[in-house]
């Protein structure tokens, strides 16, 4: 294996304040009831964050309602679009700073925040900016109306990107928002609040309340909220669905996944190996659409696994701020414990564990890229979402068996197909119960493409025209 000299990105590109309040009505409140947010790669303290109370949530929803009634709903679409274009441009200008902030707070490699997360954030705002003055073309007839105030709760795996997926279409459609970032990754959302100020976005159109699950629950529960959008675990998604049952609140839920990445014997195997690695080890496997179940045709299992293991030995795990790092830190101690527990369970149920010999940093939360082979369809690691760099390997003989095994999951968010045969791709894509099907590639995202799941992976779509409809009345 090659040795790489350290190539760390500078931490000076971003400066956090010592403590942050909530962003309500265009201003930051005084920090209160603070907790610490850390860098999961070093466990070093980054800033003090306010834990939102019922009072904070109420103030934020009121500010959003006020902004909706008095300013935002009165502006024409072209003007709303121009604000979003401004935000997109400022994100592009401050891209490197945001990438560094995201890496420090999340633990994911700078390579990914710099080349994937932040460019997608900018493109999302740019895309939906263009929709703001074209709502008549969304397919709902002339002058479709916004819902009003949207409560949005985002996860820690792509903090700023999930914020963009939520805020950009909501604002384009004419809603105002209260967003709660995940408790472990609030910093880029707070930097985004500053960007709203720089863009001179009218006060109260975007409000950000930080805190834990209880803060999120209070936000969803608030009487004056018209629309709820949540990305996160299926368990919490269920709670939210129950919470809003019987109300007029509309919901978009983007939940868990256990995607099958299906490799046929005729696939370009080296290319497939790269796709498998991208599918499961991108972002430490903290991806709801991660290709966490590898379904490989029996005839090529041995050669594929040999190639895959050799490739995994070259994966570099370590300092996320280093530009050569492939796998960064697990976002939190709790997540690390969960991954360890599930992997142990999988081994107990007959799986065979393999990981390359990679040195681990002393501080921080780390988990080596791991394969579990010999996994039966009933094994816990074949059924439950691990949300870590762990790939469960299963085999199949015929395309029909591949489809049956792939669909044998409570989830249905995404799937991958690797084959040189175009007709097989078309047929399988039709048969797989998955919202997104990638063919000979994996983990590709674009703001123009709708994203969302079947079954317990949630309902509603984000991205594209469909994602816009989630924020307009008259669409389901």
């Amino acid at each position, binding site marked *: 294996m090659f040795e790489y000299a350290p190539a760390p990105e500078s931490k000076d590109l971003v400066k956090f304040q010592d403590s942050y309040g909530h962003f309500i009505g265009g201003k930051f409140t005084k920090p209160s009831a603070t907790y610490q947010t850390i860098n999961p790669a070093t466990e070093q303290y980054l800033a003090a964050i306010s834990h939102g109370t019922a009072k904070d949530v109420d103030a934020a929803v009121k500010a959003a309602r006020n902004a909706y009634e008095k300013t935002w709903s009165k502006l024409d679409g072209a003007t709303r679009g121009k604000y979003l274009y401004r935000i997109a441009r400022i994100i592009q200008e401050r891209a490197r700073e945001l990438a560094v902030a995201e890496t420090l707070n999340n633990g994911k490699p700078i390579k990914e925040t710099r080349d994937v997360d932040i460019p997608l954030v900018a493109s999302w705002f740019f895309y939906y900016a*263009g*929709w703001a003055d*074209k709502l008549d073309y969304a397919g709902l007839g002339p002058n479709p109306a916004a819902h009003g105030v949207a409560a949005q709760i985002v996860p820690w795996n792509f903090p700023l990107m999930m914020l963009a997926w939520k805020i950009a279409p909501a604002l384009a459609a004419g809603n105002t928002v209260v967003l709660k970032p995940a408790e472990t990754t609030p910093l880029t959302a707070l930097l985004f609040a500053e960007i709203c100020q720089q863009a001179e976005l009218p006060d109260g159109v975007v409000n950000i309340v930080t805190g834990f699950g209880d803060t999120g629950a209070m936000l969803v529960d608030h009487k004056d909220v018209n629309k709820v959008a949540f990305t996160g675990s299926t368990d919490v998604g269920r709670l939210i669905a129950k919470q809003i049952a019987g109300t007029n609140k509309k919901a978009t839920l983007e939940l868990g996944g256990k995607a099958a990445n299906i490799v046929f014997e005729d696939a370009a195997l080296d290319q497939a190996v790269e796709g498998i690695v991208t599918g499961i080890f991108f972002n430490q496997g903290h991806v709801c659409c991660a290709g966490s179940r590898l379904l490989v045709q029996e005839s090529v299992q041995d050669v594929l696994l040999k190639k895959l293991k050799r490739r995994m030995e070259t994966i570099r795990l370590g300092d996320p701020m280093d530009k050569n790092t492939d796998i960064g830190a697990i976002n939190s101690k709790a997540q690390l414990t969960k991954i360890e527990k599930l992997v142990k369970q999988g081994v107990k149920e007959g799986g065979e564990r393999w990981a390359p010999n990679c040195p681990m940093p002393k501080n921080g939360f780390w988990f080596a890229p791991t394969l579990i082979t010999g996994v039966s369809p009933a094994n816990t690691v074949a059924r439950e979402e691990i949300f870590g760099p762990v790939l469960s390997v299963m085999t199949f003989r015929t395309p029909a068996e591949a489809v049956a095994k792939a669909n044998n999951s409570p989830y249905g968010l995404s799937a991958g197909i690797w084959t040189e045969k175009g007709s097989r791709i078309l047929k399988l894509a039709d048969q797989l119960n998955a919202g997104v099907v990638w063919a000979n590639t994996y983990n590709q995202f674009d703001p123009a493409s709708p994203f969302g799941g079947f079954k317990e992976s949630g309902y509603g779509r984000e991205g594209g025209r469909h994602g816009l409809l989630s924020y307009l009345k008259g669409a389901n």
Partner: protein
Amino acid sequence: MRLEVKKTYKLFIGGKFPRSESGRVYKVNDHKGEFLANVAKASRKDSRDAVVAARAAQSGWAGATAYNRGQILYRIAEMLEGRREQFVEEIRALTGKTDKQANLEVDQAIDSFVWHAGWTDKIESVAGNMNPVAGPFLTSQPTSQPALLQPLRRKRRL
């Protein structure tokens, strides 16, 4: 007194600003009939060069991603906004419009670029039947097993 520097207006072909190959110009007067500028008088060959340049660039432009084309159109809007004074002055001198009218015209030009910048990556999803990044693989699928609930006692309607 400082003597104003006048601008020479030329053609714009293939990313360059050439004079007309014919060497000819024509006079453009302002709204009062006074001399404003000599403008290149393009010949048949200049038109041909322009069409050749446009044809040569077409496949590259059409092959650029929709996102990229949108970014470039938006960039034009940004540049135009930054140079609006020049355009307002030129419109006023040429047409005799008021400051307000000329500003409105420039506003509309800028906004038109912004409007179309937003269309590049949406045409397919509005006028076509596929999105621009995913393949044409997926058709709409039914929700499989809807559970239909009816109230036990319904008012009878005849």
